[in-house]
Structure formats: C-alpha cells, structure tokens
C-alpha cells in the first residue's frame, strides 16, 4: 500500500529531534511538510509584528533546510479544518503526523483534526517533543493533580526516568526514499507570506535582534554552551547589567517556536555538566528554565481557563482594578518610571526582556503598584514577547502577581530601587529612553526628584519631555500590600498580625511519596526526613486583633474553603480566650512568644486542618479535572472521538470553584470578637 505522509508543522519548527516528522518519513512513499496559516486572521490576532517576523523567518529557514533535502515547505493558507479535507483528497494522504500540543486549545483543535482524519481514513501519528516529560505522567504521579509548587514538581521530576534522548536530524537519505515532486508553481501556491501580506506595515521596522529559525537556534546553542563553560557557573548564573540586554546566546524564543528542541538543550547541558564537574548526575537547578517551562505546561494542560482569573480553579480571585488609561501607560512605556518604561520599550522593540525585568514590570502592573489584572499584562506580553507560550506566559503572570502557586507576596519590586540595584549606572535606561541620556546616574531612576536645574541641563524636564511618575510608589505599595493581605488572610483563614503567615501553607511537600520509596531521600532535592514535616503553617491561636475584623477581609477568593467560614469557631475561640475581665489577650499570632512553646503542634491545632483543607480543596478540583482529562494522554495515536470530545467538553461550569458562589453570598464574619464572647458564644458569632 502506498503511504503518502503529511507532516503538519505548528510549533516544533525544526528538522532535528522531530519524532513526529520521523514517523512521517518512516516507510513513506511521499512526504509533504505543511504549515497552515490564515493571513486573514493574522492581522486580527493579538500577535505583534516581531512575533510574526520571527515565525516567518523560522518558516523560511525550514524551507531552506528542506530545499537542501530536495523537498519544500508547503505553506497552506486557511484554517486547519478547511484545509485538511482538501489536502487529504488532493494528495491522496494516508498518514498525518504532528507534534503533540499539550495546551488545552491545541488539544481541542487537534481532537477535531484527528476525528476528521479518521473520517478520511487517514492514520494520525502524534509524538511528544515540545516538552521534556509526558505531562500526564507527572500529573498521574502527583495523585492525578498537577503539582502546584515548583518544589513539588521538581521532586516528581527527580523520580522520573530521564527524558527521551534527542533524535538525529532528518538525513538526505531518509528524505530521498520518500521523494515528492515539487510542482513548478510551488512558490505561487505554497510560498511563505510576507509581513505585508499579513497586513503589517514594515517601513521603519527596527533591525531584527532575534532572527527566527532552526539554523540560528543551533548556532546560539553552541554559543550558549561555550558561554556556560566560560563563566564557569553553569547552575546559578548571577545577574548583571549585561543580563538585561538581548544576548546572542539567548534561547527562549527558539524553544517557544520549537526551532530548538528542549531535549537537545537538556542533554547538551547535562553532558556539559558531567564533563566539567565530573559528577554523575547534575542537580535539577541546572535545568532551571527548562523545568519552569515544564512546570507551567503541566499546570495548564488540563485547565482551559488557565489564562484567566474567572473560572480558573488555581487562581486566587483578587479584586483588581480596571483602568484602561493606566494600562496603556504601562504597555507603551509612559509610566514615568524610567526603569519600567525602558523595559517596556525593549520589549516592544526587540521582543525579549530578561526574566528579572519581567518580574519588575509584572509586579508594577499588578500587586506592586497599579493593581491591574494580570490578565491584561499577559495579553500585552502575548502580543510582544517572542517566547510567550500560552501556558508559560499565563503561569508566570499568575506567579508574579501572586495569584497562584502559593508564594509570599511581601516581596514587591521597587520601580526605582530594583533597577538601580540591577544596573547602578542606568545605561540600560539611556539605551532605551534616549531622552534621559544626559541625566546623572543619581537621578536617572527617579528623574522627577532631580532639581529643576539638573532637569534643564539634561534637556529633559519631567512633566514636559518625559512623563511624571503615574503613581506614588510608597503609597501604592502600602495600599496594595494591605489588599494582598486581605485576600490571603481570607484564603488561609489566618487572622494574625504576621504578614508571612498570611500565605496558606501548601502541604504538597508533606505528602507521602507516591512511587519509589528508595529515592525519596537520595534525590538531590529531597532533604533528610525531618522530625515534623510541615510546621510552617502552624499557629497556636488565631489572632484576636484582625479577627475582630474578620469580615473585613476580601473574600472573593477562589481557593477559599466553602464550608469553613461558617463553622469557624477558631475565629471566635481566640476572642473567647481573651478574658475581657483581665484583659489578657491570648497570644495573638503564631509569631508571639508563647506560641513558641510547641511550634510543632501545627497538625493538631486549629489552623493546621484548615489550611490543609484548603489544599485539599484545590486538589480536589484538580482531581476532578484530572478525571475528566487524564484520558487524553499522550498516546494520542488512537485518540477516539470520545476522548477528543472529552477535551473540548470539560465543562467549565462544574470546575468553576463553586465556593465563589458561597463567598458572594455568605458572610462568615462574626466580626465582633469582644462582644460575641460575653453573650451567645457561638451562635451570635455567625449571625
């Protein structure tokens, strides 16, 4: 039987380590590599010109590489669901191959195509190569939930077998066996569109900083490895001023588009480490960036609402402000804070910014200063950032805005101090905001504080030539830290004075290991089993102070425990334990001296179980999703109709944390600590 293969490129724009493409070639009589693109949608989509340029360059490079193999890239205009039936018939296709797309949207789209291919009698072969690990396996190993902390994720990964070894590039011999005639008018029918065709205006387009394509990616990989050897700190590079600039060794956009295989990078790093350190197994921290990427992919793969707050079970519901004007100032680099504006300018011009710069602008937009939703920032990144993956982008934004993943929120980057710390001279500012170039170092991060004479001498008067700061950072961060505290205290049911204890303790680490017991204490990331696994969240008595104000906390929190507020005598307990006669308050917080007596009693105390149930809750929600979705494992070769419906049909409604409904209706809040106690102890408290 004749085998006519079509390999469908989406991400994974490369010929090296491309398992699905290898499947296409395997025993085939003809093979065609297609990329499907809808120019009509291109202009409308929320994707900026730099990202399009990168993509087109990557396609160009792919086409060139295929030419060398006596083949070509077929860029087909249209939507996949319209294009494929046509191609199936026209080319008499019998086999369709593509790389597995773990993102919910991709799974849905692919489900439809698989179904369609079946109807046409076309065999579909799908291979996982965009991520190092099989994400469903990670989820399975974490009791069918995606891990919610990076640490937990690392622990699981350390118990997995090593990722698949990369495959060799496609060889001319392989291609020769399934040689496909290229028609005379190939360039008319299947050419790569220009930016103009996609509706972009290209005059005045700055020169490209990140050239797209596999060839560039492989060159960069070599430089990247050389540099690692050179700086001799391959695990934990320290950040310096030059880290802020686009580096010729940067790889993230290439991983995003799959111009570089993450498996190739992984094994190159591993081998380099073993060569240099002469140790048998490298620490996980060596693969920091790669693992963060996997972490967010895992968290997102079964959560179609991963990119929004509403209906997203892992996202804390935070009462963000809406303010289009402020958002525009941020997005266009007109905040009046040179550090923020320089970063946003670099992002817009070049399409990449350093991860610390991402932290700075994301913190500024959300919990630090402007108190605007992370979703709006994520959309701007999606438009401008070359390496913006759906999962990684949304995940990072949730992380940086403290909307998920249980981190401390106290750490708020100062739009003046953080920049100065990273680049004391301010040359980075001068490069991206030339109007400030003559400011002395002392004022370049806060030009509004420069005396008028200095401003005039520098030919840039604040308020005239450069905007005044749009917000008073001290005041803004004061307000915002309070807001965050409100949100998180509600989440953790913590009422004490401690800022740090406001963040719920996630119990993931404390869970018993799931598979290989022998490895638990030998892995590089698992410390010796401690006497008491998690006392971080323990607190002997909730505080009476804020507890009096318990109803004042913001309670639109997704992770909030539904049933808890109602029967939360602990809240009142602490007031009851305040003897109004003697006025002797109970220790107010876990931080208080007397709480030190038995700090390890966390598990049995009043707060412990509550925090646990919070986690349990989150986990339960995930488990539900897991159940619905785990069938869509990577054995997609034979994905049935049912399964594909399963992907699409996971109803958001059932997953929407129903607690929200409770939160909005029931107000737990027996606000009154002192009074309630004297009369009706428990009843009054909840009425």
């Amino acid at each position, binding site marked *: 039987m004749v085998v006519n293969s079509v390999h469908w490129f989406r991400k994974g724009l490369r010929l090296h380590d491309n398992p699905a493409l290898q499947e296409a070639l395997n025993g085939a009589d003809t093979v065609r590599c297609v990329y499907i693109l809808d120019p009509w949608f291109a202009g409308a989509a929320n994707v900026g010109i730099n990202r399009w340029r990168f993509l087109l360059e990557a396609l160009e490079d792919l086409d060139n590489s295929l030419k060398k193999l006596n083949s070509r890239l077929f860029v087909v205009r249209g939507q996949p669901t319209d294009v494929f039936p046509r191609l199936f018939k026209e080319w008499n296709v019998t086999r369709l191959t593509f790389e597995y797309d773990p993102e919910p949207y991709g799974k849905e789209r692919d489900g439809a195509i698989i179904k369609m291919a079946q109807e046409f009698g076309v065999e579909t072969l799908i291979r996982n190569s965009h991520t190092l690990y099989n994400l469903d396996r990670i989820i399975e190993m974490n009791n069918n939930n995606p891990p919610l902390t990076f640490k937990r994720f690392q622990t699981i990964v350390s118990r997995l077998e090593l990722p698949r070894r990369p495959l060799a590039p496609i060889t001319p011999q392989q291609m020769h066996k399934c040689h496909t005639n290229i028609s005379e008018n190939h360039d008319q029918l299947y050419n790569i569109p220009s930016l103009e065709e996609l509706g972009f205006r290209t005059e005045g387009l700055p020169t490209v900083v990140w050239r797209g394509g596999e060839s560039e990616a492989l060159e960069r990989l070599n430089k990247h490895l050389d540099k690692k050897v050179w700086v001799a700190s391959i695990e934990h590079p320290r950040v310096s001023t030059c880290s802020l600039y686009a580096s010729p060794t940067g790889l993230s956009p290439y991983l995003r588009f799959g111009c570089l295989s993450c498996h190739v990078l992984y094994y190159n790093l591993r081998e380099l480490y073993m060569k240099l350190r002469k140790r048998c197994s490298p620490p996980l921290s060596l693969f920091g960036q790669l693992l*963060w990427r996997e972490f967010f992919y895992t968290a997102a793969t079964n959560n179609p609402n991963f990119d929004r707050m509403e209906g997203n079970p892992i996202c804390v519901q935070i*009462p963000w402000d809406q303010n289009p004007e402020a958002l525009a100032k941020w997005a266009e680099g007109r905040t009046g804070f040179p550090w923020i504006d320089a970063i946003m300018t670099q992002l817009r011009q070049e399409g990449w910014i350093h991860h610390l710069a991402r932290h700075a602008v994301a913190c500024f937009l959300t919990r630090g200063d402007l108190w605007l939703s992370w979703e709006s920032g994520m959309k701007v990144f999606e438009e401008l950032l070359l390496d913006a993956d759906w999962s990684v982008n949304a995940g990072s934004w949730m992380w940086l805005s403290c909307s998920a993943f249980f981190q401390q929120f106290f*750490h708020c980057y100062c739009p003046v101090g953080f920049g100065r710390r990273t680049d004391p001279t301010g040359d980075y500012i001068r490069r991206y905001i030339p109007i400030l170039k003559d400011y002395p170092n002392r004022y370049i991060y806060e030009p509004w504080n420069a005396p008028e004479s200095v401003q005039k001498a520098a030919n840039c008067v604040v308020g005239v030539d450069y905007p005044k700061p749009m917000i008073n950072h001290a005041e803004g961060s004061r307000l915002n830290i309070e807001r965050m505290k409100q949100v998180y205290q509600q989440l953790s049911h913590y009422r004490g004075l401690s800022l740090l204890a406001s963040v719920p303790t996630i119990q993931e680490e404390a869970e018993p290991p799931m598979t290989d017991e022998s490895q638990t204490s030998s892995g590089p990331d698992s410390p010796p089993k401690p006497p008491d696994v998690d006392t971080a969240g323990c607190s002997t008595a909730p505080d009476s102070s804020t507890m*009096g104000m318990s109803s004042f906390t*913001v309670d639109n929190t997704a992770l909030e425990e539904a*049933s808890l507020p109602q029967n939360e005598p602990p809240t009142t307990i602490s007031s009851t334990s305040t003897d109004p006669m003697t006025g002797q308050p109970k220790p107010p917080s876990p931080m208080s001296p007397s709480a030190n007596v038995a700090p390890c009693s966390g598990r049995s105390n009043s707060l412990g179980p509550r925090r646990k149930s919070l986690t349990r809750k989150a986990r339960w929600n995930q488990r539900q999703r897991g159940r619905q979705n785990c069938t869509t494992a990577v054995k997609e070769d034979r994905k049935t109709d049912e399964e594909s419906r399963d992907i699409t049909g996971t109803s958001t409604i059932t997953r929407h944390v129903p607690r929200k409904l409770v939160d909005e209706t029931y107000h737990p809040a027996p606000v009154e600590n002192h009074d309630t106690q004297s009369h009706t102890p428990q009843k009054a408290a909840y009425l």
Partner: protein
Amino acid sequence: MSEIVAPVFAQFSFLNRMKRGVEPSEQQDGGGTSDAVKKKSLKKSQKQRRDVHPEEEGALYWECLPQEILLHIFQYLPLLDRAYASQVCRRWNQAFHMPELWRCFEFELNQPASSYLKATHPDLIKQIIKRHSNHLQYVSFKVDSSRESAEAACDILSQLVNCSLKTLGLISTARPSFMELPKSHFISALTVVFVNSKSLSSLKIDDTPVDDPSLKVLVANNSDTLKLLKMSSCPHVSPAGILCVADQCHGLRELALNYHLLSDELLIALSSEKHVHLEHLRIDVVSENPGQQFHTIKKSSWDAMVRHSPKFNLVMYFFLYEDEFGPFFRDEIPVTHLYFGRSVSKDVLGRVGLTCPRLVELVVCANGLRPLDEELIRIAQRCTQLSAIGLGECEVSCSAFVEFVKMCGDRLTQLSIMEEVLVPDHRYGLDDIHWEVSKHLGRVWFPDMMPTW
C-alpha cells in the same frame, strides 16, 4: 416568592447553573468540619427514619423541625441556598427572615467598568434596608476604585438610621475611592451611623476622609463600647483628633494609624490607668515627599506603654527612602512586627538588632548589595522572640544564613528567603543549603523561587 427572595435570585441567577458543582466539593472537603458533619448526620438520620417509616412520615419529619434547629441549619447556608429553602414552605420562609440571619451583611459595591467582581444587587440592598436594616449589626462595605461605588456606600450608610451597628468596615478593594468623595458628604453619612448606633465596637475606616469633628461625634456616642479603630491613612485627622479618641474611649484595644498621628501624648493617654490594656497598635510610616523629616517618640512614652500593656503588639510598616530613617531605631522601641516595604539600609538593620528586643517578625523587601551577615546574626542574638523572617532583594552569605538559622532554631516558624538572596560561599552552595537549614529548623525548608523565564 417573598419580595426579598427575588433579588437574591436576581443577584445569583448567573450562578444557578453552577449549583450542582457545590455539593460534591463540600462533601469532599468539609469532611472534617462540623457543618458538613451536621448536614451528613441530618441526612443520615432522615435516611434511617425512612428505612423505618413509610415515605410520608419521613416527609412530615422535616416540617416538624424546631425553629431553632432550622435556624441553626440556615446559618450555615449561603444566602442563595437560604433563598431557595425559603420557598419550600411557610415555616422555612419565616425562618429565612429571622433577624439572626441578617445580623451580618457585606455590601459589595462594584461598577462593571472598574471591577471584575459582581456587586450586591440593588434590589437586594433595597430590601435589606426595608426589611432587615434594624437587624444589621456587623456591616461592611467593599467598594471598588470608582467614586460611584463609594457614593453608593455612603447612600446606604445614611439610610442606616434605625439600626445599631456593632461593627462597621469601609473597605476599598482597589484604590481608596472614599477619598474621592466630598468630605462633607462622606462625613454626614458616617456620622449617621455614629449617632444612631450607640454601641459601635469596631470601626475600620482606613483611607477615608474622616476628620476630627466626626471622631468627636464617634466619641460622644460610642466611647463606652469602642474597642477597635483602624484608620490608617486618614489625612484629615490630626494628632489632636486621635488623642481625643484615646482620652475618652478607655476600652480601645486595637488601633491602626499613620505615624504622623502618633505622639507621646497619645501613648501616655493609651497607657493611663483608666485605659484597658492595649492589644495591638499598628503604625504606618509613609513618606509623602522625599527627604521628609519625621518626629521622634520618646523612649519614656514607649516604656509607659509597655508597662501598662506588657503584651501589646506594635506593628510597624515602613515605606520610606533609605535616607529618611534618621529618627528611627535610635532608642529601644517595643516593636513586634516590622515590615520594610522599601529599601532599608544595612545601617538601619544593624540598629534594629540593637533596639528591638521584642521583635517577632521581620520582613525586608530590599536592601543594598552588601551582605547582611553581621546584621542578621546580631538580630538572632538580640531578638530572642524572633520567629518569622522574610527577605526580598537582599544579600546574605550562605554561611551567615545557616548560622542565623542555627541560632534561632525551630522557633523560626516562618522563613521566607528568595533564592537570589543567598550568596554561595566556601561552605555552602545553593544546592545544599536547604539540607543544612532544614536540619536546624527540624522541617523541610527551601528558599523561595521565582520563575526564570
């Protein structure tokens, strides 16, 4: 359908379809909690009865539920579920309106243009004011950043004439929108509550234009009952205004205000014999303009405070530039919780170790590029109560950090250190420091990480 039930449904109609999702999760997670247990046991007892008796008798059973049990159950139900239940029969409908169920209410006032969150339905607000305003005791208003929402809150406040509130909270969830209202408008609404509610006990009015005369009204009507007052960043209040409150309200136990309102006189007033022990004092130190000069508080005033209320907590949030710390931490200060929201110098942190013997929690958002080794070790030595520490943009050598943890031991219940803070040295690298720290803490510990992407 009762006239109040309709607005409840109106408010939640969009959520009705989600209702199904509620039940399994509650069962799953409420497992250890008493309300779920109650629900379950109730179900169980019903079931058992059904096993014994014919169906009809089982049906009779719930109708005979004593009112107080019904009330008890209703307490645990969200408003929407109570509204559903109220349609079952007349008795349940009566139960729905029992005053006990309307003591506590939170008004959420949001505009679609400025918030992502739902607002309390206007009809529901109307009905509550009409039927249940005299039952309200614990009331809070959450407003988004729009002026309209703050105005709406004031409108409701000024209608609360026939109720006696025990707690009132005005909470800006985004920007301080009450500040945008004309002062007179806000004050007249607020004083309605002060005058009509004679036993106000807790009042949270941070970021509002409350002023001295309105505090006088508060004192005149509620001095015997007031226990908690939170008024951080209320620019129209003067030190004299808050002093008047402290002088008259001897039951005041918790107070939050900005540093410019803090005076020696205030501390003396709070530590007078007539005054109850203070439990919490929260001070926000915010600089309005760079280079601002701050007044000092005498050590003797703090000493008086500690003598009077030996266990009181002093929580201080600093939002200052490094050069503005001059007057602080020169003398011993009884601070227990210390938060540096901006960069703080190595020098000041060194002083903290010398002057804050009661320190329980220390959070440093940022510091310079020089390691804080000696400062931390000194804090570990001198601050024997310290049990929580958070470090953001700072630097500490791994060895010094391990030493710090070793000295504090397992009393460090909260230890949040960004990974970048720790500078590897000859003794410890980043990949092994968590072992050492975990060992001294007696539990698993890792530094905090940020995504590197």
